[in-house]
């Protein structure tokens, strides 16, 4: 990067806005005490990420993100909470050593990543992808040609998960 020359383009502004939402959401998820609140803040992160995808001109992905994550996954997690310990409150830490070591490890790992990102100078050999409006169309095409095998496999995977989840979660008649 070399220096902190900041070009306040529209993308950057949007990026920062979403970044703030996401980081705040993520941090809140870690610090809030009530489980339901945590889920709500996580949903905020998901939405922020969807916004970021839009900024990156990946509208289809953004759409999927919002639908699947902010929608389905969050609901699923709320179900999970409801069916388990919905009154539960995150208690005071009882494993300080574990938490400190985890924090240190996470921070060091971030340090490594940050170092790697910052020391790299990106010199793309091609201009940024300007997908334009037929983004979804192109994605669809590729999914059904180039990536048809994983696509079909994912359908199998979803079926498996579906059946599995039902069978596992259903109550056994004693």
């Amino acid at each position: 990067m070399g220096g902190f020359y900041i070009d306040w383009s529209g993308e950057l502004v949007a990026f920062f806005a979403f970044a703030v939402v996401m980081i705040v959401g993520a941090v809140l998820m870690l610090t809030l005490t009530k489980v339901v609140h945590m889920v709500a803040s996580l949903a905020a992160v998901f939405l922020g990420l969807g916004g970021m995808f839009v900024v990156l001109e990946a509208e289809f992905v953004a759409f999927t993100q919002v639908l699947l994550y902010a929608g389905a996954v969050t609901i699923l997690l709320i179900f999970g909470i409801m069916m388990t310990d919905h009154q539960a409150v995150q208690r005071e830490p009882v494993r300080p050593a574990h938490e400190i070591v985890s924090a240190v490890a996470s921070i060091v790992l971030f340090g490594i990543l940050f170092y790697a990102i910052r020391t790299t100078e990106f010199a793309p050999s091609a201009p940024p992808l300007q997908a334009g409006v037929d983004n979804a169309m192109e994605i669809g095409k590729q999914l059904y040609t180039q990536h048809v095998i994983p696509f079909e496999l994912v359908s199998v995977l979803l079926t498996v998960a579906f059946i599995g989840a039902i069978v596992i979660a259903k109550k056994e008649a004693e």
Partner: protein
Amino acid sequence: METVLSQYAWLVPVFPLAAFLILLAFGRGMKRTGPVIATLGSLASLVLSALVLIEQLGGADEYNNGFDWIQIGGYTLTVGFDVTNLTALMMVVVSLVAFLVNVYSIGYMKDDERISVFFAYVALFTCSMLGLVIADNLLMLYIFWELVGLCSFLLIGFWYYKPEAKAAAKKAFIVTRVGDVGFLIALLLLFWYMPDHDLSFAAIANVFGQTGLITEGITTLIAILIFLGAVGKSGQFPLHVWLPDAMEGPTPISALIHAATMVAAGVFLVARTFPIFEASPAALDTVAWVGAFTAIFAASIAIAQDDIKRILAYSTVSQLGYMMMALGLGSVTAAMFHLFTHAFFKALLFLGAGSVIHAVHTQNIHEMGGLGKTMKTTAWTFAVGALALAGIPPLSGFWSKDAILAEALHDHPALFAIGIAAALLTALYMSRLFFLVFAGKPRKGASGHESPAVMTVPLVVLALLAVVAGFVEMPFEGTGWFGEWLTGHAAAHEGTALVMLVSTAVGLLGIYLGWLIYVKGAIPRDAVTKRMPWLTRLLERKYYIDEIYHAVFVVSLRAIGRAFDAFDRHVVGGAVRLAGGAAVWTGRAATRMQNGQLQSYGLYAVIGLVILAAAIAGRRFW
């Protein structure tokens, strides 16, 4: 002259061997016939060796024959036999004494339930001893040397249930082994230094006869090491300690092995390898001084002992010292002569002692007395032996001891003085022994009775030999054919008259003193004890040599063993445990990681990733 019988000399040891094998295989059922077979075996040996001797006396050539024993690459170890005048003579001595002891033992051992075992051992010993004698090279001699040691060990421990016998047997074996190691190393040295790695006596004589083939240092080393072997076997100081203890064996064994034959093997060995000694004055001196010291040292102990056989044992040690001294003085003739006569009279004394013990069932001379009346034959034959030992003319001991003293006087007056002193002591302790046992009144009701003929006849035969054996070599012109025959040149006889006078006087003096003390009581028995109790104690306790050895060797070896044991357990074993412990410890740490906490598992993974990245990739970016 043609050698006819000498070619078959190898049969001499084979007869007793055959007897041994027969007894070993069938001995259990042969309590009666077993002894007879063994005796016949030794008789056959005696006859054949006598014939060989006669042939050799007749001037037959020396005869040698053998074959390869081990052949490795370019090296050969051989076995073979040698008939020379020396070996022929020794064969006769050995087989004669063996035969007589066999006969004697038929009577002496007849009540023992393991009599056939006894005779088997004796036969094996006879075989080994004869093998030792006729061996034509040093290795073969060594082999038989060890075998006679084994037989000695077996026979000392014959009454295995007696703790003393067990201890004595063990001691005999181990102490002689110390000397044997010296012998072994000498053997190794000789093998690598001799041209063509030839260990035969002929080659040794040849090589060491010439100067310069082998350096003097090595020669001396070899000689001393060989002598070390002889010291062990012949009970010379400082390895004499086993011999008195060996008296725990049956008395005929003491006569055969520990008086007449095996213990003389040391002398024989030195005589056989004498060219090596001759090439090294230092070695000769060593031999002479060790011999002389042993002679007087053992004689002094003998005075203070109470056990009849122990006295005789120390006497043997002392006489062997004489022989060694003779060898050290360079006179094989004198040494062999004394060996020859000593074999007879000492065997006689032991068998006589055996006869006494057989009768009174004790070995303490203070518990005997007056046996001269009840055991006439034993008494007079014993007297002959004692006089011969004391060096009273014209018995055989006189002549042979005289030859040695003459050599000493000629070469080394100091040694002569020691020899004379030892002779005095010899006469003293023999008279003490004789008078206490046979004179005076019976003590403790030990009246005794004469032994059967089968025991007394050998006594008589030996007594005769003890009388006449000395006449083969007298210090007069024209009578010294023994030395000439044995070594090829006649012994010098200078100043012998003086020696004869002095030694006779000393002998008589000793006997007189003994008579004064023990018969007449003119000098109180405790005269010395009262004034110098420490001296008596010192002599009684044999100069504390056993105690010193125990402290120095046994205790320290045990301490070393214990120390090593601790080392083995804690250091070597500890290292092993440590290695195993490292694995277990790692495993324990790894197991502790398995705390069941999912998040800990995740944390390990993250830490692992961080460390891998930081350590391996990170080094590229520092």
